[in-house]
Each structure stands twice: as C-alpha cells, then as structure tokens.
C-alpha cells in the first residue's frame, strides 16, 4: 500500500506531536523527523511522521489520495486531483 497521509503539527516535542488532518487530530511519533514547529506538514504512516513536507507537497499528496478515492467512487475525470501536468516531470516530494 505504501500510503502516507499529510498531517499538520498542532504542537509537540521531539518525541511526539499532536497533528491535524481533515479536521481530526491524532498523536504522532516524531522519532524520525525530530521536533517541528506548529504548522509544519508531515507525511505520516502508522502514527509515525516519516518525513517533513512543504505545504505544496502536502497538498499534492492529499489531492492524489482524494483522486484515488474519487476513482473508487466511479469518477472518471481525475486530472484535477492529480494535477496532471502533461509531459512535465512529476513533482513528487523528495526525501
């Protein structure tokens, strides 16, 4: 599956942080990324922040996951979710 969800730091320390996504909060381990300022975007999997994202990267991933969900609902026009850029290089977030 390898899916992570972007979440935004509300507050926390180097060990854990309360993070927000889609209006809901959950506690996330910060072991891999260290302490981060409130408002920082993180890629989270299994309650662990795996990497720090820019706001643009977080939005791209959010939209991509929304696009997958839309496809599962039967939608066919998915370009608006994925920000398909023709033949331009993908703008996947880097490590």
């Amino acid at each position, binding site marked *: 599956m390898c899916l992570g969800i972007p979440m935004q730091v509300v507050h926390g320390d180097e060990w854990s942080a309360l993070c927000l996504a889609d209006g809901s909060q959950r506690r996330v381990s910060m072991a*891999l990324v260290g302490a981060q300022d409130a408002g920082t975007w993180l890629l989270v999997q299994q309650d662990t922040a795996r990497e720090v994202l820019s706001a643009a990267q977080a939005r791209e991933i959010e939209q991509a996951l929304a696009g997958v969900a839309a496809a599962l609902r039967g939608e066919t026009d998915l370009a608006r979710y994925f920000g*398909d850029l023709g033949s331009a290089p993908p703008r996947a977030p880097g490590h």
Partner: protein
Amino acid sequence: MNALPAPPAFLTLRGARGTHLSVGFAAPRGIHSESWLTHIRPAVALQRVGLAFSLCRVAQRTATQLAMHAAAAADAPDQTALAAAVRAEWLREHAVNLLLAWPRMLRQPEEPALVRALIGVAADARAAPRAWTHMLEQDLLGMPPADFVNLDAAGLEAWHRASATPLAARFAAARRATPSLTPQPMLAQLSTWTQADAHALAARMRSDAGFSQRPHWDGVVSESGAGARQFAHPLLAAWRGQSGNDAGMRMLARLLELALAAADELPAVSMRAWKLHAGEAMAAVDTARGPLLHWLRIRAGQVVAYRILAPTEWNFRAGGVLEQALSRCDGPDDAQARAWVLALDPCAECRVERSDA
C-alpha cells in the same frame, strides 16, 4: 479530541475474547486496479504513482518505469541509480521496524537518533558499507557484521547471552515468545523467476482482478519478505533450532539483511521486467517486504490497463502466513498477535479489535 482521521488503508484483526483472531485487510481495494491509472498517457501514470504511493515511491515508480520501458512506452531508466535508491528505501524500512516499531510495541525506549543516522547512511551509497559497518557493530550487533552473519548455533546463543545492545537484548527476549509454525512455502527469490514463472503471474494479474488481493504461486499460498528471502541462511536455521519457525525468526531476517548490507554481502536489489505481448509488460522490484509487481497494457499511447500486486498481500491474504500464525496464538492478551504483525510488517495501518461476545 475529534475522531481520528481514517488511515488510507488498514488491517484489522477481529475476534471475540478467548477466540482466535481473523484477518481483515480493509485496504481500498481499487487502489491496486486500473481505474486511476488508465486512460492517461504513460508519463501521467508515472506521476500519479509517485504521488499516491508517497512512502515507497522509489520502488513504485521504478516498477512503473521498468514496465513502461518493457512495453516500449518509455525510455530505459538508469537502473544503477534506481537500484541504489530502492536499496536505501529497503534498509530504511528494516531500520524503522527494528528500532522504532519494535521497542514501541514493547513499551521500551525507541532509538530515533540511531534510526535517523542509519537512514542517512543508507541514502548515501558512497558512505555505505563502511559507515553501516561501524554503526551496526557499535549500536546494533555488538560485533562486526561480517562475524554476525557467520554465527553458528553456539555463536547465536552466546550473542543472546551477551545482549550487548538493546536490540540484541530484545532478540534474546523474543525467543519462544510466539508459537512456531509448521513450515510453509516461501516465495521464490525474484532473481530466480523464470520467463515461464513471470508469464504465469502476469496471466493471473491480467485475467483475475482479484489476484492482487489473493496472490499465490502456481496455486500455492506463499510467504514473502525478509524471512522468505533469508529462510535458508544458516543464521536463521540456527534461530529455528533454538526458538522455532516463529515471529522472532522474521525479525532476525531483517537484522541479517542489515548486517549483510554492512558486510557487503547483500546481493544487488532484483529489478526485472518482462515484455509479454505488444504493448503489455510486467515489472517486479524486490522491496523490504518482498516483490512489488506492476502489470500494464498500453494502446495508442494510452495506458488502458494497470494492476499492482503489493508485497504485503502475500502474507496478509486469507489463508496466508499471518492467518496461520494467528490460529496458533493463545492467551488472553494480543501480544503474540501484535508480535506476528510486526514480524510480517504490513505496509498498512493495523488494528487489533476484540469483541466482548
């Protein structure tokens, strides 16, 4: 606090108290099928794969690129660079499992600084394996990696007794902590797959939309991951002699692969692709959890069919190794079930649910 946000995919183990747990993999099934990766140009599909699979994006994008190249829809990727990146992703997942997830499950101190350092070194091919060797010797093994990978049964026993690092102590405590399984088939090493093997798998992916959730090897439900890859290694045989075919053996396989990398004895990552018919191809990339398969068909410059088989599915499918393991777990708590889940390391969120019925 508001309701927790639903993870995009999760695994649920359900069972009434006092009964065996069953496996329910509540992943969004369609993510493996074609709907969001079809009727678009190959370059756009590659972009979408990288965005949706944000955690193992290197392996996922590599599989896409290899399959597209085999289908004559893309230029040849730089396989050397991709293999190094996939390997870094692979070692990262092992480090996270052993040094974060495992102590967290046991409520022991996590080792974040060590994990970050390991991940940093894994991402720098020039620094490895020398830096790996130093860190593994000092912080994980308490002995040179080249010695660790050659331990016999007596040496493994002495390593347990010494418990020179927190990780070694966890392994010593893990012996006989979960039931031993009767031997089950292990998935063949990707590097050994024949043309016929690949075509048979591709035929199933093409004709059966559900194959990605119920994978089998020529009718045989098989285990994937580090435990399968390293099952025949003498170190794992020594573990089985002491503790059985248990969850700890799968954890040790992960540590063995880190040590083999440090000792420069870990084979290059297998990445293979097969052209099946005109415009149709399949690619396989070996990841920490086992082979990742992408199958696709391209017509007139458009992707018209796309299916993905994630490595997690081999172990967590109905009738797979996790289900076999859970059928042998007993006791009032779920510690054994959690240990098995950790050992098999799904790439999805996992919950253990107990009813009071």
